[in-house]
């Protein structure tokens, strides 16, 4: 992008159509002919390709920055920064840190364990298949598109509106609970996932206790999670139960 080339909108659109055209027939030949008639066509095609590639790259980089916000706090703790000690005072500092660590160890042990177990087991539910072209439940599937794209806030907003009209709906309660958990908000997640009785006779009767237990684990309520998992045995629930400390 060092030396911008002037390309009109018509030229830009024509070059993009040419670049994206997959066919080989007459249409492709006509496009090729039209593009080749442009002044400096080779230079312009190369430039459009470069701008498109750089745009896609910058969007990827922007997405990567967003992804990083989903790293659990325990994994991205600024407290893990490498410490640089000056020679003088190093022993005092070490002693102070040791005392502090000893005290904190017992306090944080449970939290660290909980966060690790949560991070190791939490994967957002894959969601429901999208039924395109049907008018029924349109709002719900629109939310599901957002959910599958990881746009959790948008999905929550859409589903919350539907839940207001139908507060007992198990599908909405389940996905709102899982979505809040995917956002890292276990407290809010539990508002939708509890009480578990609302899922007893539905299709989420195995999955709901699993995510409820994960939310409780994230909250540090290991005993409550154990009880719930023991009461709802399934392959996933038992594996999660076995990963919890005695």
């Amino acid at each position: 992008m060092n030396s911008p080339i002037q390309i009109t909108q018509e030229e830009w659109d024509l070059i993009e159509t040419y670049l994206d055209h997959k066919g080989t027939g007459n249409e492709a030949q006509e496009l090729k002919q039209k593009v080749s008639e442009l002044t400096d066509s080779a230079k312009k095609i190369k430039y459009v390709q470069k701008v498109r590639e750089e745009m896609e790259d910058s969007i990827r980089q922007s997405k990567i920055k967003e992804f990083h916000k989903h790293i659990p706090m325990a994994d991205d703790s600024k407290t893990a920064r490498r410490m640089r000690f000056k020679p003088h005072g190093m022993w005092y500092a070490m002693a102070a840190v040791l005392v502090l660590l000893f005290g904190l160890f017992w306090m944080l042990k449970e939290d660290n364990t909980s966060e690790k177990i949560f991070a190791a087991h939490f994967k957002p539910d894959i969601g429901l298949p999208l039924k395109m072209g049907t008018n029924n439940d349109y709002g719900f599937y629109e939310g599901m598109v957002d959910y599958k794209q990881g746009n959790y806030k948008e999905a929550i907003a859409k589903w919350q509106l539907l839940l207001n009209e139908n507060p007992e709906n198990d599908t909405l309660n389940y996905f709102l609970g899982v979505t809040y958990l995917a956002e890292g908000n276990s407290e809010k997640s539990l508002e939708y996932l509890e009480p578990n009785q609302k899922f007893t006779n539905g299709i989420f009767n195995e999955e709901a206790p699993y995510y409820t237990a994960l939310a409780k684990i994230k909250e540090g309520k290991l005993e409550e999670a154990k009880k719930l998992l023991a009461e709802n045995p399934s392959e996933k629930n038992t594996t999660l139960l076995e990963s919890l400390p005695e």
Partner: protein
Amino acid sequence: MGNTAQIQEQFTLLDAFLNNKEAPIREFYVAEYPKTKHYVLTHGGTIDNANDVFQEAFFSCWKRLSTGKFSPNTKSEIEAYLFTTAKNKWIDHTRMVAKKKTISMEGKTNYITADDTEEINYHTEKEQQLTITLAAFENLGEACKELLTQFYFYKMSLRDIAEKLTIEEASAKNKKYRCIQKLKELAFHKINT
């Protein structure tokens, strides 16, 4: 996990990288980050260093996968590629810091071979260019960012974008062109200031 489930998982991940499907890529990012963090922290780096090398490696991995320059047969190959890239980036970084120190102490560049210099210059130039484009993109208005992301990243058609924005397809096309012009101006301005 059974063999079928493993193949399905691998297919899902590859498909996600090839078609920019965000959720599986994000899950993979979150799952793979701790390994690099641990490596960097145990090899003299900080959390910020770990974040930087992991993000650079992830970008490189994503790009190679999406352009077909890297065609793994298993998910483990992607994991290994990502970790090795991050590890090499961290080793390069520590070597460059050590070289700079050596140069400043000895006043000469004996430790850098011609090939190394070329490679470093290439990376610096390439990364600088990307940073400038990313910076320009980040400075675009939300509406333009959204439109360009839908078209160039999610590969949505202009017709669908227009429908979503409740405008005519021709207006969406104009808007896209204006957003690209704006982005080019921002990039040009950034590179010349």
